[in-house]
C-alpha cells in the first residue's frame, strides 16, 4: 500500500507530445482508474510508474521514494520498484508452467524455497487456479492465462498493482467475472491499484476514483464513479461514459431553439442561467437514451420515429426533433406493457427525465471544468 504521485510529468516520443505537465496523486490502498480513448497516453502512465519509460520532465514518487526525475535524467530500474504489472496480452511466459510463472518473482527476490512455494500456491488459490499448477500456458484459456498473470503480479505482495487493459482480450461474460475478482483481490491484498482502460463499464464497476483522460493526455475530470457519471465536467466526459445525445441549441432570454432548425426547445433552467450568468448564447443539452421519455399524448416536444431497432431487452429508437435526431431507449417489457411500441414514421411526444446543459456549442468551445 503506497501513495503514487506525479508532479508535472511530461513525456514525448520523437515530436509527439503524449503527456504534458500531468500531476495527480493516487491515495494508498485506492483503486484508481484512468479512463480514456485508445492512444490517449494512459498506457504511458502505467509504463512510467513501472519504470519501462522515463519522464522527460517532472518527478514520480512511490511512497517515500522518488523513482524517476525527468530533469535529472535518473530512474530507478523496474526491478527495484516493488510493483506488480498485468498486461493486456497477459505476458505469461510460455515456457514455464503456471507454478513456475508464479514462483518467478519470489525466485528473483531470493525468498527461501519452502516459503516461496507456499506463497505461490496461495496466490494460485486466490485466483482460483488450483489443480492447474503444472499446466503450460498454451493449455490454458485466455481467462486462465490472465489469472496466472494476476497471481504472478500479486505473489510478491507489491505495494502497487498496475493493470493495463487486462480484460480487453476476454469475452464479455468472462470480463464481468474477472472485474469482480480483481476488485476482491485488491481488497484482500490491500494494495494500491492503478487500472487503465477504455471501457467505461469496467471503470464504473471497480473504481474508487476515475480519471477521465482525453486524446491529448489531459485529465478532464477526477472523481468517484457516481460523480463523473452524474455530474460530468464537460461533454467529453459525458460522451465517454455512455451513449450520449447532444442537442445543440441557441438560447435567447431563457428560451432555447434547436440549432438545426430554430424550432423551439425546452427553456433553459434557472439554475443553469444563474450558474452561467446569462440566459442567452449557445448551449449543448445532453442526455442518455434512457432519459428520453416517449409517449403518444403527453410530453413537451414533438418528434418523429425515424428508426426502430429491437435489441432484446431494449427497444432503440432514433427520434427526429426537427433536424436534430436523438436516440431513445426503453425497456422492451415496459414498452410492451404501456403500449409504447412505435413504428418507423410514427409521430410521438418527447420529454426528458433529466437534461444536462453545457455552455458552448460543440466540444471545441466548451471550457474545461
Amino acid at each position, binding site marked *: 500500500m503506497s501513495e503514487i504521485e506525479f508532479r508535472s510529468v511530461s513525456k514525448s516520443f520523437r515530436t509527439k507530445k503524449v503527456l504534458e505537465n500531468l500531476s495527480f496523486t493516487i491515495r494508498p490502498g485506492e483503486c484508481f482508474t484512468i479512463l480514456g480513448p485508445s492512444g490517449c497516453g494512459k498506457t504511458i502512465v502505467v509504463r512510467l510508474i513501472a519504470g519501462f519509460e522515463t519522464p522527460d520532465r517532472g518527478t514520480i514518487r512511490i511512497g517515500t521514494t*522518488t523513482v524517476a526525475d525527468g530533469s535529472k535524467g535518473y530512474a530507478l530500474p523496474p*526491478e527495484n520498484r516493488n510493483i506488480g504489472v498485468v498486461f493486456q496480452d497477459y505476458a505469461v*511466459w510460455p515456457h514455464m508452467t503456471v507454478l513456475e510463472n508464479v514462483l518467478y518473482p519470489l525466485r*528473483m527476490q531470493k525468498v527461501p524455497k519452502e516459503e516461496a512455494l507456499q506463497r505461490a500456491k496461495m496466490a494460485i488459490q486466490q485466483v482460483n487456479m488450483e489443480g492447474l499448477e503444472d499446466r503450460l500456458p498454451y493449455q490454458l484459456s485466455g481467462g486462465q492465462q490472465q489469472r496466472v*498473470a494476476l497471481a504472478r503480479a500479486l505473489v510478491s505482495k507489491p505495494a502497487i498493482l498496475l493493470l493495463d487493459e487486462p480484460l480487453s482480450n476476454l469475452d464479455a461474460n468472462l470480463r464481468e467475472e474477472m472485474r469482480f475478482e480483481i476488485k476482491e483481490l485488491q481488497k484482500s491484498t490491500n494494495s494500491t491499484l492503478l487500472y487503465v482502460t477504455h471501457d467505461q463499464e469496467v471503470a464504473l464497476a471497480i473504481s474508487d476514483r476515475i480519471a477521465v483522460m482525453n486524446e491529448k493526455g489531459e485529465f478532464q475530470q477526477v472523481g468517484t464513479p457516481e460523480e463523473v457519471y452524474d455530474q460530468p465536467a464537460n461533454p467529453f466526459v459525458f460522451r465517454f461514459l455512455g451513449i450520449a445525445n447532444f442537442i445543440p441549441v441557441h438560447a435567447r432570454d431563457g428560451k432555447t431553439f434547436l440549432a438545426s432548425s430554430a424550432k423551439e426547445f425546452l427553456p433553459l433552467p434557472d439554475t443553469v442561467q444563474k450558474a452561467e450568468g446569462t440566459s442567452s448564447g449557445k448551449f449543448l443539452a445532453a442526455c442518455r437514451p434512457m432519459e428520453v421519455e416517449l409517449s403518444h399524448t403527453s410530453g413537451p416536444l414533438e418528434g418523429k420515429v425515424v428508426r426502430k431497432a429491437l435489441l432484446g431487452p431494449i427497444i432503440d429508437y432514433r427520434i427526429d426533433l426537427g433536424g436534430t435526431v436523438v436516440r431513445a431507449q426503453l425497456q422492451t417489457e415496459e414498452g410492451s406493457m404501456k403500449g409504447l411500441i412505435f413504428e418507423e414514421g410514427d409521430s410521438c411526444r418527447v420529454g426528458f427525465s433529466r437534461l444536462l446543459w453545457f455552455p458552448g456549442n460543440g466540444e471545441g468551445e466548451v471550457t474545461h471544468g
Partner: protein
Amino acid sequence: MVDIYTKPKISVAQIVLLFSILVLVVVVGIPVILIFLTAFFEDGKLNIPGFVQILKDPDTYQALWNSLVIAFGTTLVSTTVGVFFAWLVARTDLPFKKTMKALFLVPFMLPSFIGALAWKVLLSPRAGYINKFLMALLGLENAPIDIMSMGGIIVIESMYLFPFVFLQVESALERMDPTLEESARISGAGLLTITRKITLPLVLPSILSGALLVALYSLAHFGVPAILGTEKGIYNIPTKIYERIYSSGGSFRAIRVGTILSTILVISAALILKAQDLLLKKGKYQIIAGKSMRPMLLKLRALRTPLLIVSILYIGITVILPTVTIFLVGGLKTYGLSFELKNLTWANYLEIFRWKMTKDAIWNSVYLSLGAALVTMLAGTMISYVIVKSRPRGKFILELLGVLPFSLPGTVIALGVILTWSGRFGINIYNTPWIIFVAYVARYMAFSLKSNSAALQQVSDSLEEASRACGATHFQTLKNIVLPLIRPGMISAFFLIFLPALRELTTSVLLYGPTTRTIGVAIYALNEDGETVRAAALASVALIIILVGETSIRNFLARLQKQE
C-alpha cells in the same frame, strides 16, 4: 530519497551495439567495399576505362551473357514447374496429397552439383549411359541428348531449384482465405476463371519471391555449370572467375577481373531484389488469412491418375534416378563398365575413408560447417537482439549489413574474403581453413539473422517487461525469459547454416588450399581429374550424411514444434 540509479556514460547495450556493428563491418562490410574498390580503382586511381575494357573482352562478356541466360531460363522453368505442382497439390483432388507434397521437397536435399554429376554420367554425349543405350536401341550415329549444353544446365538447375517456388506457392495457397475464391464463385465465375483471375494473382507475391530466390541462386551458381559446361567451354561468371584465378595461380590481375565480374553480379542481384520490391511494395498484395475451411478443389476426373503418374515419374526421374546412378557409379570397378553385379565393389566406398584426400575433405567439411554454424548462430542472435529489441540509433546500418550477404553470390563473398584476409590488414589466413570459415560466416549470416529475428519478434516486449517488474534485472531477463523462448529459432538457424555449409561448393572452390578441400571441392576436383568413380563414391557418402542429417533435423524440429 534512496537508491537512485544513474545511467552510466556507456551502457552495456551500447557496447553490444558497437560490437555487433564491428562484427558485421569486419565480416561483411570490408570485403564488399574491397571488391568495389578493386574493381573500379587501379593503383589508387579511378579506372573506369579499365573496367569497361574487361567487360568488352569477348571471353568475359560471353560468361556474363551465359550467366544471365542461365538465370533467366532456370527461373522461368522452375517457376512454371513449381507453380504447376503447387497448384496440383493445393487446389485439385490429386490423390496421396500429403505424400506428394513431401516428395516434391526431396530435390532440396540433393546437392545440385551431385545431380549434375549423375546426369553427366547418364546423358553426356560421349559416354552417357542413356545416350549409349538409345544409340544402340535406335541405331543412331550421334547421341540424341546432349546434357552438356546451355539447355542442359538450365534443365538440371531447374530440377533442383523448383522447390523454392513450390514451397512458397503451396503454403500461400493453403493459407489463403477460401472465401476469397468462394466470393468469386458466387459472383458467377467458374473454377478456371477463378484460378486465372483471383487465385494466381493473389499468390503472385509468393510466386515472385520463389522466383527471385531461384534467380539469385542460379545467377551465380558454380556447381552445375562447372560440371556440365566447363568441358565444353561454356562458362558463367563464377566458373569464369574460377578459371581465371586457377589458371593464373591466383594472380592479382585475375582477381581484379573477378571483382569486376562480381560487381556485375552484385548489381544484377540488387536489380532483381529492387524489382521484387517495386512489384510488391504497392501494398495491394496481401493475403488475408482466414479461418481454415476446406478450399474448393478442382475435380481432375479422368486426368487424376495420369497426373499422379506424371508427378511420381517426375520425382523418380529427378531424384531417384540420379541418386541410384551415383551409388552405382561409385561402386564400379572401372568407369564405363555396365551396371552388373560382377562389375560392382564395396572397395571404392571403403577407400573413401582411407584415402587422405577424401578423408580430410569429409573432416574439413564437418568441422568447418559445425564451427561456422555455431559462431554464426550466436553472433546472429546477438545482432538480432540489438536490431529487434533495443532499436538503437544506427540500427539501419546493422539491418543493411545483415541482409547484404543475402544478395551476395558465394563467388563474390569468396573474392571479398580473399581480398580482406590475405595480408592486407596484417592477417593472412589464405590457404588455411580459417579463410573458409570466415567466408561461411559471412555467407550464412543472413540466414541466422532471419531465423533469429523471426523468433525474437514472437517474444513480445511485455514478456520481458513482466520479468523486470517481477524484480529480475536485464541480464536475468535475458537468461530466464528471452533465451529459452528463442531457442527453437537459434536451433533452426544452426541447422539452416550447418546443412548447406556441409555441401558448399561455390565459395569453397575459390578458397581451398592443398590440405583444406571440402567435400564439395573434393568431388568437383575428382570429377575434373577424370576420377568419375571416386567422385561418385564420395558423393554417395555425402548424400548419406546429408540425408541422415536432414531427416533427423526435420524430426527434431517437428518435435520442437509439437512442444510449442
